[in-house]
């Protein structure tokens, strides 16, 4: 089980790789679309990368509810096995 900090930093790595977001900018309150300029296609790529990294699949309907970095961290934390 990854800790909250590990999930946060792992997600930041994914965001940097996929969308060029600087790790320091990937703070929990940030909105993917509004603050970090991550578009819907990149969100799908991020979901795939999350599944690879944490073994947590994010179904499409759940992806629509994830708007901030913090939302994603919570979702991963709750759903990791």
């Amino acid at each position: 089980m990854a800790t909250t900090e590990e999930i946060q930093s792992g997600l930041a790595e994914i965001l940097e790789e996929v969308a060029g977001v600087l790790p320091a900018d990937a703070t929990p309150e940030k909105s993917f679309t509004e603050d970090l300029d991550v578009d819907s296609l990149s969100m799908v790529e991020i979901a795939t990368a999350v599944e690879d990294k944490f073994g947590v699949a994010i179904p499409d309907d759940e992806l629509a509810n994830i708007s901030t970095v913090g939302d994603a961290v919570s979702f991963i934390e709750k759903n990791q096995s």
Partner: protein
Amino acid sequence: MSDIVVTGLGATTPLGGDVASSWAALLEGRSGVSLLTDEWAEQMPARVIAALAVEPSEHIDRVKARRLDRCQQVALLAAREAWADAGGPEVDPERLAVVVGTGVGGALTMLGQDDVLEQSGPTRVSPLTIPMLMPNGPSATVGLEVHARAGVHTPVSACAAGSEGISLGMDLIRAGRADVVVAGGAEACIHPLPMAGFSRMRAMSTRNDDPERASRPFDKGRDGFVLGEGAGLIVLERAEFARARGARIYAVLAGAGVSNDSFDMVQPQPEGSFASLAIRLALRDAGLEPGDIGHVNAHATSTPVGDVAEAGAILSSIGDGAAVTGTKSMTGHMLGASGAVEAIFTILALRDQVVPGTQNVDDLDDDPRVQALDIVRGSPRKATLRAAVNDSFGFGGHNVALVFTAA
């Protein structure tokens, strides 16, 4: 009708990462052709290719590059160079259009994602697959870069696509739909499937033991083209618009001619009758006589049938007075980019008053039509050039001829 002028050039080719290095290499007679050493190539009958001299992804922001197919990356780099070269024209976006032709579009993405689909299933396919594989991807990439709102277009006409892009760009300005157009072609599809397909058509050279001599237009020993990759884009402007902003003018795009063989899907009509038609239409459009044309940058892919048909076309439209060159002997065949890159070489020939030499013509074809042409072989030739023609032909019977005149 107002003149249409060329104010910017951009290219990335097997000879260089920009126009200046590609042109310098061409005048030196350097070859961009090499042996493909990837493991997958071992089974290929044809293993000679003309790969880009400069890796495009290394010159694009990493995150942007991963969202672009290679054919879009080369289009972007050529567009940036051409736009900067034109001085970054200040034009109303609603008067700015883009036309970038391609033969196959994002083939590498389509094939790569098909591998992902086969190996890992549909949920692993990249969400970027469609925007990266669509044939209008290169033109849309350029449109986004320059913020063109007067239309972004994509002629898909195989190896004539780059020239058709320039011809359509001219039409847009003439029709009053744009003042400035970024026009040309882009291609990047060096991959086992296109290579196997072309090989099965016996269209590609199998001179694997001597790559630099594999592309040999008009030579008796030619045995097919060498697959290349690249992009060429030019900035076209309504002359009044260019002059009003004090733009440097390379040349005038004086005319274009477009025809189709409607003869066979892939074989050229053997006499080159309709390729000749395209050239004659271009001359008429430009208001020039055959004797005015000092130079032809020929399509000359190094295929046995194509080069002879083209020789016939040039003879019957322009005659034997023009200095003809086949620059694919050095660049290989960049398919949908070739016509645009060769248009750039034609423009630079007019600027520098020099005709690049055709390489590897050791033993000129015996056909009387080839023998009758004034083919510049080996070293470049100084010449007094007022007007020059670039012709391009593509599978599907497409014929496009462009006429440029010195600025």
